[in-house]
């Protein structure tokens, strides 16, 4: 019998469910393979010792107490935007406008700080900042949601476009409110009076943000998993026809959820301006609206897992910056390593869902 004719080299079939330790074994294994692969690439391309490079990546996040706090702060901001887009994602509504919605919130907060600093007491300014920035974020998401509900426009493109509008709007106001004159930048707002600056908890500059986001994270988990709204979101996301069949008002759920999504993005903008940076620039959100998409997906839209995935992305990002300075490499090299690691982590999901049979394995010959 002609052996070459017998069967294909390999074929793929879907797995049943794997036990949790096998799933995590595959994920852990893929991370290990990714690190080895990155090491090979590093020594081939740069000639550096990969172990030293890894040590530097670790240093980037845990090297000093300050770096550790920056890590936590960055995680909390990324997590905040990720939590914001997640309810929309669960509804299969792709809100890619986290960037713009957070910017709208930041703009509203800065506007309060600048325009009201001479007319209202500090507590009133902060209160107004909270209200207006959350509202601004909600409106920025509400516009595409309204159009989607009313005329079934594509929310992906619409929210994406709203990002550009927000960026240009902020760029415009940066010139209007520039300080000092002619700089084209706003600089630190109210550096002496600290009006509109959020209170600091003890000596920890970032603790307030971290606590707020932690609370939002738990609340979002409970909201999505146990509330009636969360259930409606899940049903609409799975099938709009089923939702209509049981009498859920689909359009109302879409608008409500997008408003929530935008409001939380607005909160992220508020925290960036009021608590961390005390200034406003067009790139104050630092692309978190887009990184959040990855955080949310990697965690399969589970708020608790998102703590881990946002840690992973921030950790890798900080490490990339660290090796850029330590080894006088280009920042892009760190990004290449990040890309490789993410590729392996995402790719491992394939091996969790499918198995590959090679020719000859598990078969008797002849």
């Amino acid at each position, binding site marked *: *019998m002609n052996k070459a*004719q*017998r*069967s*294909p080299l390999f*074929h793929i*079939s*879907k*797995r*049943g*469910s794997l036990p949790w330790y096998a799933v995590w074994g595959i994920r852990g294994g893929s991370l290990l393979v990714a690190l080895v692969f990155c090491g090979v690439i590093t020594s081939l391309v740069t000639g550096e010792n990969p172990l030293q490079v890894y040590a530097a990546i670790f240093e980037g996040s845990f090297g000093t107490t300050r770096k550790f706090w920056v890590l936590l702060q960055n995680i909390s901001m990324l997590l905040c935007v990720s939590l914001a887009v997640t309810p929309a994602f669960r509804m299969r509504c792709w809100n890619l406008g986290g960037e713009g919605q957070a910017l709208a919130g930041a703009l509203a907060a800065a506007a309060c700080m600048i325009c009201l600093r001479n007319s209202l007491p500090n507590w009133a300014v902060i209160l107004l900042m909270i209200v207006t920035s959350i509202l601004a974020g909600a409106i920025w998401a509400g516009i595409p949601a309204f159009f989607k509900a009313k005329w079934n426009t594509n929310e992906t493109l619409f929210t994406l476009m709203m990002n550009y509008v927000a960026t240009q709007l902020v760029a415009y106001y940066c010139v209007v409110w520039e300080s000092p004159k002619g700089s084209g930048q706003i600089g630190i707002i109210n550096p002496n009076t600290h009006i509109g600056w959020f209170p600091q908890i003890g000596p920890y500059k970032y603790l307030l943000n971290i606590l707020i986001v932690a609370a939002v994270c738990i609340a979002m988990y409970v909201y999505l998993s*146990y*509330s*009636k*709204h*969360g*259930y*409606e979101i*899940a*049903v609409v996301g*799975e*099938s709009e*026809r*089923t939702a*209509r*069949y*049981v*009498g*859920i*008002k689909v359009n109302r759920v879409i608008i409500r959820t997008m408003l929530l999504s935008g409001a939380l993005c607005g909160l992220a903008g508020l925290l960036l301006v009021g608590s961390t940076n005390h200034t406003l620039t067009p790139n104050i959100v630092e692309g978190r609206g887009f990184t959040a998409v990855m955080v949310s997906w990697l965690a399969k839209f589970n708020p608790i897992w998102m703590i881990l995935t946002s840690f992973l992305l921030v950790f890798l990002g900080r490490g990339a910056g660290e090796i850029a300075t330590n080894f006088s490499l280009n920042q892009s090299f760190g990004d290449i390593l990040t890309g490789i690691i993410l590729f392996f982590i995402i790719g491992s999901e394939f091996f969790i869902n499918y198995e590959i*049979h090679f020719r000859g394995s*598990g*078969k008797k010959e002849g």
Partner: protein
Amino acid sequence: MDNKIPAVQMRDITKRFGSVLANDKVWLNIYRGEILALLGENGSGKTTLMNMLSGIYFPDEGTIAIDGKEVVIRSPKDAFDLGIGMIHQHFKLVDVLTAAENIVLGLPGKLDLKAAAEKIRGICSAYGFEVDPDQKIYDMSVSQKQTVEIVKVLYRGADILILDEPTAVLTPQETEKLFAVLRNMRNDGKAVVIITHKMHEVEELSDRVAVLRHGQFIGDMPTAKTSAQEMTNMMVGHPVVLNIKRPEPVNPRPRIEVEGLTVRSIDGYLKLEDVSFTAYSGEILGIAGISGSGQKELLESIAGLQPVEAGSICYIEDDGRREQLLGKDPLSIAQMGVSLSFVPEDRLGMGLVGNMDLADNMMLRSFRSGKSMFTDRKTPHTLAETVVHDLEVSTPSVSTPVRRLSGGNVQKVLVGREISSAPTVLLTAYAVRGLDINSSYTIYDLINRQKEQGVAVIYVGEDLDVLLELADRILVLCGGKVSGIVPGRGAKKRDVGLMMTKLGGKSDE
């Protein structure tokens, strides 16, 4: 046929999907000049087995031999090269192309539609098909599309044909035509395999039957030497009673009164025209008709899911009060206190959420109850366990996503939820479509019990034999109009079939 070499020999074929053993060392012979009926309950592995023959799946173990020669079928193309063609349940045609264009699509060589049309006409006249090669697919009825699919595989030179539940979408007349064609092909020396659930079709058409159960080959025998009862017992594994009960309606009272109902689709086509009827409590009103004659729109109008152009739908309470249902959505209908249950045709796309588990699916109807902003998870969980127990749903647990269940079990979950709210009206669309015999009888039984409890049941069905046995009255739809309403007891299949294709059903003869 004893010493003939089989056209197809399948030996020790095993196929696993994850932990599920879909086929377990199956042996099957298929002979030329013979129609083989492949029987088995849902999930018994019939379609999987045939998919391996047509190159869609690759077997984990076992060998396949064509005309005594061992072969490897890696892809549908390999299968075609070996003369194996499969007609699937879901047609794979391009709507905007003509029949001829669809048939030659993907074939190598120069595109010569004229020659192709000639060849198609040749095939048609040889076997008695009626296909216009220049007709566009979107202009065709379901049965015409199916014919195109069959001609397509014949055009490619197939002499081993596999048909997966071909009659599920056909009227009795169309079924007879199809059977005539299949007999012609058999007489021409082709091997024909037909997968079906309908016993009377097996008896009428096939020469030999092969039975699978739980992925295993149970046996095969000449059709003439067996009976529907024996085949069913083999499929199910224990004796089954093949009678549908039809208790007399007790104290029927008008419950739903539909008057002059007219519905247009979004693109302006008339889907229902001036439909009027009354459904009574304690009665099963069967709705017959070719698929797409307005059954879906009719049920969805009553359930508040379909915008209506004109007419009225009244719900009549026990004390004679009338409530207009038209213009209300499902939520406001429920809030009016009308307990209306609906088992839609699209079980996983409308009635249930495939990715949610049983308990969460039970919650679909009840999640709003209570003032708290949080959902009550306990009651649906208990209900899920009750349904699993009472209706014998086979599932690993109530926290299994329903899409993992087999068709019959999915339907039991859906029907179980819908009747749990003690409805006064029960709408069902193709309640047993794709279900095996055992599950089908469970569903008939459940529906009958609802009827006995005084529920007005509206049952849209496709199997006329079942409608004639189950329904107290049958409303026949033809092109969106009421072709007639006949009593279920004593109605003739032929007459109802004619009413389905022609208003009033008067034959020309």
